[in-house]
């Protein structure tokens, strides 16, 4: 069963979550001794495309069509499904990014494929089955989902599979399927991308602030800490509800779910709805002045203390560590 991976780009560049998806798709292909083809849609240059070989793609189908420059899930799903038919792919992998979540279910319907959304590990193929593990109940459990259809679509949760570099280049081939006008009725009026910041769902380290920080004027130290660590900024829901921080930084059940290597929570109590979006982080550090804050129960490391005292000290300690490293 050949494997096809959809490789999402942002302004012509692939991101870490795309390399994770390719590495993951490679491993699935290897489980079955089969080929891995990638498909890219949009304006991506040949060097960038061929570079997907590094992560295990043998061939890249390049769809470069003015009408498909920007993501429209309806049209992209049609193109990916066509590509799957062309290469005879039975497993289609993509990243469970915002766009991926709008795309995977549509591809699933087109190919009569079961869709495993937000996979967190490689499929279990023992006993002739195809079982994918995904997070469920808003981070409180995992569900093991068997895909029983011949075709299968898997969207990979960002930060759950390590990028693997095998070191070759991929052959790039143009692919120009017809696109129906009725798939292109969506008009993209505006794209706003803050390129200077680390994107929250992709970040390795996240520094997050809660109501304990008292007001937006106190975020300077949080930003400094994040800057030192190359981290993305996040916040609790009341913080964004009060307009202290933008909604795009709100994590938790009703916000973004993150699973970085390191999550640092400052002045956040650890309500169950907050934990729903962060509990799959690998290491959790909590800074809170209340030793009984529920967050300490799910933390790996903690400091009981006043953020206005602890955070500046932490910044100083990291600067010192960096200087000596």
């Amino acid at each position, binding site marked *: 069963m050949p494997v096809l991976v959809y490789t999402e780009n942002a302004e012509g560049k692939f991101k870490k979550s795309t390399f994770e998806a390719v590495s993951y798709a490679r491993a699935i292909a290897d489980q079955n001794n089969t080929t891995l083809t990638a498909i890219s849609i949009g304006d991506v240059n040949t060097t960038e495309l061929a570079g997907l070989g590094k992560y295990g793609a043998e061939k890249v189908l390049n769809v470069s069509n003015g009408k498909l420059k920007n993501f429209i899930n309806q049209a992209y799903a049609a193109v990916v499904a066509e590509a799957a038919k062309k290469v005879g792919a039975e497993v289609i992998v993509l990243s469970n990014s915002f766009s991926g979540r709008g795309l995977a279910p549509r591809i699933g319907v087109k190919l009569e494929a079961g869709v495993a959304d937000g996979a967190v590990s490689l499929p279990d193929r023992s006993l002739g089955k195809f079982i994918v593990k995904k997070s469920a109940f808003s*981070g409180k459990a995992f569900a093991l*989902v068997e895909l029983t259809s011949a075709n299968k679509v898997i969207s990979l949760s960002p930060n759950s599979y390590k990028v693997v570099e095998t070191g070759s280049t991929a052959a790039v081939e143009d692919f120009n399927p017809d696109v129906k006008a009725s798939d292109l009725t969506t008009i993209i009026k505006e794209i706003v991308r803050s390129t200077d910041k680390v994107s929250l769902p992709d970040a390795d380290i996240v520094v997050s602030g809660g109501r304990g920080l008292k007001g937006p004027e106190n975020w300077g130290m949080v930003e400094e800490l994040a800057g030192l660590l190359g981290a993305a900024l996040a916040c609790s829901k009341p913080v964004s509800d009060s307009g202290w921080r933008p909604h795009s930084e709100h994590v938790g059940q009703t916000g973004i779910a993150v699973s970085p290597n390191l999550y640092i929570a400052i002045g956040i109590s650890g309500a169950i709805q907050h934990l729903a979006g962060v509990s799959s982080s690998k290491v959790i550090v909590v800074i809170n002045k209340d030793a009984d804050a529920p967050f300490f129960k799910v933390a790996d490391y903690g400091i009981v203390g006043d953020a206005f005292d602890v955070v500046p000290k*932490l910044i100083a300690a990291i600067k010192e560590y960096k200087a000596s490293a």
Partner: protein
Amino acid sequence: MKILVCISNVPDTTTKITFSENNTQFNATGVQFILNPYDEIALARAIELTDGGNGSVTVINVGEVNTEPTIRKALAIGATDAVRINAKAHDAWFVAYQIAKYVKANPFDLILTGRESIDYNGTKVAAMIAELLDLPSVSIIKKLDIEGINITVEREIEGGKEVLTMPLPIVAGTAEGVAEPKIPNMRGIMSARAKPLTVIEPVEVKTFSEVVSYETPAPRGQVKLVPADDVGKLVVLLHEEARVI
């Protein structure tokens, strides 16, 4: 303007999640079920858009009879009428297929879902309904406005946002920001009992996925506390022990 809002019946956000029968079944004993919080947002926006008799809001649920209290709650909040497709919600594909079948026979100008159900967190139903009906879809929207026959939505992308516009009908999944959930008032609760709730039988459909079992995440070890006057020690632990910086 005729709006359809897809609603799901889910365990309350604060529920402790446990499983039975060798971790193959969700243990619903003693669990309080609620209207999925994102569906409350969809419903609230639908009611705003049809305010003052400018259309109707139908809520639809694929579920067994035990979901009716949640359906009645949606009627109490302000939906015009309700449909229940009498079947256990096997998976997103099954749900989407049943709803798409219903919509083919009963067209709507706009179909709203929540961005995800808080139990299975699939973010799949909206896009699947749209694909089955050959309509545009946007799975996670933060804003929704209608002008004439066009709809404009704002969707989140990594590190930013996108504004999209397209002709109705479409299917969209609502997230925080689209509307504030509404709380039913006494009059709503009284009138909900009299509003129509139609029960229809499901159509046959092949299924493509099965939940085999569940796992609960391994508990984290005891938290290691570092004294507030020795912050440098935290940096050492993160570097040498946790190896994350």
